[in-house]
């Protein structure tokens, strides 16, 4: 049995206006990022002194390209969700809040798209 009134249910969904969806997406992306981060770091530490040929041959492999895409897209999505909450917590004026949220969204989309395009350009 829920203690929430029908009106509360309709209006409700908390201050973010979307219920637990945001929180859940943060968790799902976090779970995905654990193995992806371990893969990324263990790959990258072997290439700190690598020449261009070595690195580009590595990223040419379809498996590496797909894992890089997954890491970048999941990571940027997780970043966007996290920064959004920080802005909601600390910025109280409605104008700068909306402005900052848009700035974060645009920046994340630009970074994610640019990185993804570059990975595809290398691998295809």
């Amino acid at each position, binding site marked *: 049995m829920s203690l929430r009134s029908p009106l509360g249910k309709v209006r409700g969904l908390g201050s973010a206006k979307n219920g637990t969806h945001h929180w859940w997406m943060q968790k799902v992306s*976090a779970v995905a990022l654990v193995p992806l981060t371990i893969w990324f770091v263990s790959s*990258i*530490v072997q290439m700190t002194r690598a020449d261009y040929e070595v690195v580009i041959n590595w990223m040419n492999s379809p498996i590496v390209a797909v894992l890089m895409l997954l890491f970048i897209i999941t990571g940027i999505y997780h*970043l966007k969700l996290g*920064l959004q909450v920080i802005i909601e917590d600390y910025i109280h004026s409605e104008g700068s809040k909306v402005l900052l949220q848009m700035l974060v969204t645009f920046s994340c989309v630009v970074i994610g798209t640019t*990185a993804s395009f*570059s990975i595809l350009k*290398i691998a295809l």
Partner: protein
Amino acid sequence: MPDTKRPLSPHLQVYSWSLEMALSIFHRATGVALGGGALLITWWIIAIATGPDAYDQFRNVMSSIVGKVFLFGFTFSLMLHMCNGIRHLFWDIGKGFDLEDSRRSSKMVIFFSVVLTAISWVIGYGII
């Protein structure tokens, strides 16, 4: 914020700092820092896609002292955020809320993020 006459809860400066509080705010701080890390990775990928000259430029910047300080901060932020994030996932399924468990997991988070950072740098650069 609306001006109300209701009593306010005690704020941050009232409490004595605990390991859990420090890790909580560090989780946020490292999360923001990892935004910078995302920019760094993006620059790296763009440099590889652009060509050998752009890649060498990136590698030269990252081999400098300033570059290495950034990389080290990035590595540690990533490890701390990942270890503490895993702890958050356990909290989310309702495990490890006891004071004793929390204190133990705080120490584990710090231990593992230091160890994982050290391992990465030993493999990556042969130094700590």
